[in-house]
């Protein structure tokens, strides 16, 4: 899901605590923002920290002056061979920047039918990935290569990865009990940062501090949760909602790190880059926030409600938009399925659902 979706979902979760809403309206507290901040935190940890400290066994830096697809393919094959021998192997592929707005592109694919690593050198592109005409490699022997590895492999997708601008992708190869090697895209993403255990740990640490430092607020008899506990709970539920939302996609999370080693697959219900699922979560959050702010308003007997009839509110502002979104979502799915079935229309070069979920521009 998009960062904004996680952010607003975190705020929505925080708004379910009446005391947090009262603190915001009566004490000018920013506590509701805490839910949003921890809603986006798992991706912040991955894309601003974890990615830099992940060490790969092999780094491939193609030389733009001496381009050869075989060198790249052999480098990737080496990492797979390491996985066959030692259980795991990782490879980081780097981009080739030629000028401030000029890059040499190449693609990497894994042909599971023939157990081959497939690399093709593409044209030079600008930062918008628009190719420059006539920049394709002329020598076919150097422009593409297939290198066979001594094992079968499998992955969640069978499409090519386009490596062109900014930072290139990283792959991990893991030998499974069946003897096959699994190809894991971006092994540093959605691991420890996207686990229930980390959310719980941070909540415990924060709870320890707040237990000592946060005094009981006014009118404690109104609330079932003491004020000191409010902060860790909002942090915990804020990060949980991120993990739950990500689990609806394809890539999944490593839910109980360090007790579980690998990511579990997502439910595959929707892709992170899809507009309607993202907006569904955003709209649901907005409706929940509005409803909670209104029902938890301070002194309800003295203040008129903003929502006079909740049934009318939910019907017009939630069920109706939900029906419209459902119509367009399933219509789009149907059209996509029809396109897939049409012969000769397979888009082998398009990004996969998994790739789109991990594109930094998506989050």
């Amino acid at each position, binding site marked *: 899901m*998009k*960062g*904004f*979706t996680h*952010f*607003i979902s975190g*705020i929505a979760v925080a708004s379910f605590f009446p005391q947090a809403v009262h603190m*915001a*309206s009566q004490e*000018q*507290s*920013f506590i*509701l*923002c805490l839910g*949003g*901040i921890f809603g*986006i935190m798992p991706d*912040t940890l991955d*894309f*601003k*920290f974890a990615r*830099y*400290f992940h*060490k790969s066994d092999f*780094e491939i*830096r193609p030389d733009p002056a001496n381009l050869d697809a075989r060198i790249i393919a052999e480098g990737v094959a080496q990492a797979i061979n390491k996985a066959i021998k030692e259980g795991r192997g990782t490879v980081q592929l*780097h*981009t080739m*920047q030629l000028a401030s707005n000029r890059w040499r592109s190449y693609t990497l694919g894994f042909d599971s039918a023939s157990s081959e690593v497939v690399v093709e050198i593409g044209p030079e592109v600008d930062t*918008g990935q628009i190719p420059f005409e006539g920049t394709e490699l002329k020598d076919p022997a150097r422009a593409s290569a297939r290198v066979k590895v001594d094992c079968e492999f499998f992955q969640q997708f069978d499409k090519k990865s386009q490596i062109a601008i*900014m*930072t290139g992708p990283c792959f991990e190869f893991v030998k499974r009990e069946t003897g096959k090697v699994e190809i894991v895209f971006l092994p540093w993403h959605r691991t420890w940062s996207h686990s229930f255990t980390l959310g719980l740990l941070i909540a415990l640490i924060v709870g320890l501090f707040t237990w000592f430092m946060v005094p009981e607020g006014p009118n404690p008899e109104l609330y079932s949760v003491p004020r000191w506990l409010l902060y860790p709970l909002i942090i915990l539920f804020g990060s949980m909602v991120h993990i739950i939302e990500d689990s609806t996609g394809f890539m999944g999370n490593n839910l109980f790190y360090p007790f579980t080693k690998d990511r579990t697959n997502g439910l595959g219900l929707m892709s992170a*880059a*899809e*507009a309607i699922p*993202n*907006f569904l979560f*955003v709209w649901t959050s907005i409706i929940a926030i*509005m409803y909670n*702010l*209104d029902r938890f*308003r*301070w002194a309800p007997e003295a*203040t*008129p*409600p*903003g*929502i*006079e009839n909740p049934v009318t509110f939910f019907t017009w502002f939630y069920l109706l938009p939900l029906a419209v979104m459902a119509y367009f979502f399933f219509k789009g799915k149907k059209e996509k399925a029809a396109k897939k079935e049409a012969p000769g229309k397979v888009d082998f070069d398009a990004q996969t659902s998994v790739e789109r979920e991990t594109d*930094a*521009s*998506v*989050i």
Partner: protein
Amino acid sequence: MAFLEHLLHPQYLDLFYFSALGVLFSCLISFLPALHIYNVIGIFLLVILKFEATMAPMQLISLCIGMIVGYSILNTVPATYFGPGDESLSYYILPSADWLAKGRGYESIILTGVGALGGIIMLAIMAPLFLLFLPGLKTITSPHMFWIIGAVISYMVLSEWPKGISQSDSCWANFFEGWKFLGVGLITFFLSGLLGFIVMAKTMVPVDFAFQSITPVFVGLFAIPWLITNIINIGSIPKQHESPSMELDWELVVRGTFGGFLGGFFAAYVPIVTAGVGGLMAGHATAQRDGRLFVMSYGTCKTVYYVGSFLLFFIPGLSLTRGGLAWIVTPVVTVLTMKEYVLFVGLMLFSAGLAFLMLMPFTRLCIRMVEKFPYHWVSVIALILVVPGVYSFTGWGGMAIMTVATGIGLLPVMFQARRMNLMGVLLLPVCLNMAGYGNDVLRFLGLI
């Protein structure tokens, strides 16, 4: 029918004349290089108010409707070719500059215009519904506005991702390379916030022009860095292609208008949030990735922001004063009834139609200008006009503020960080003031 009968009554036809005049004035205003609309309208109204005796309040308002609608649609043209005047525009200008460099500036402007027209139509459709749900929305959100702005700030800061492309063997070298951009973004946000506190607490602008105190800040933060970049980077722009037709489908129009409307309405409703910030959030909320969708959605967003914030002021019994123009006309408007609201919607639609018709010839005129005069010199002339302009209204005090603001405004340009961080100049002080912490900050800074 009753609505049309009401609108076409001869007693209101003069209002259409003033709206049309406003649209024409907006062309001129759009041409004033790199200045914020509200400041320009403020000066303009100072002149116009001298005719107060001969102009009825509704005529003045019609003029303002024409100006703001015309400006929100037409300003894309000079902003694309000569540089943006504020943050709402600079958000659009980055992708638009890319289109311009490919000779597709015309296409980008027309797409934005279609989006803007879609935004006005959406506003007209929503106008009766605003009467139903905005009072409730206001009741719910009023006590919470400060943390909503706080949430906007948090998201703006957290949603900037590293851009580093370092391929070093050292993890730390890669980390620092990536964080260089994020660090500059954070520094920019807090420095501009600090500047905002200083300007709001101790303005150095002469009292007579106190309403212009934010002008040197905006010129320094947004306009001058853009002009300097143009002067340094661009010698000329490639030949601009004026395509006779455009590839558009309903899905693109609906998605662009819908996303843009959400962002524009959010920006219009929440104080201090601009179209750029609203557009960013709506773009993320609706997962926009297509370049054409972004450009069109931006057109809707900025129009809904500029016009919508003015429209909110006219909702009877709501007293929602959002956006600079609503504040400017407050002394003129005494009573707001349903009649004024209906007239507003009618004049808005009329002005939008007129402005859209002017969009294509106006764009062609600008293209001729940049083709005739070297682009480099257009920016130099704009810079030469802006600096004395700021001096004449704000004196040496304003020049000092502008110089400091320019220094801060150049940071994101030099390090390719988000320019939106410069909105810290308003977001940070207003958010903290609304939460009641403003005086504590001022005391800490030794400003009170």
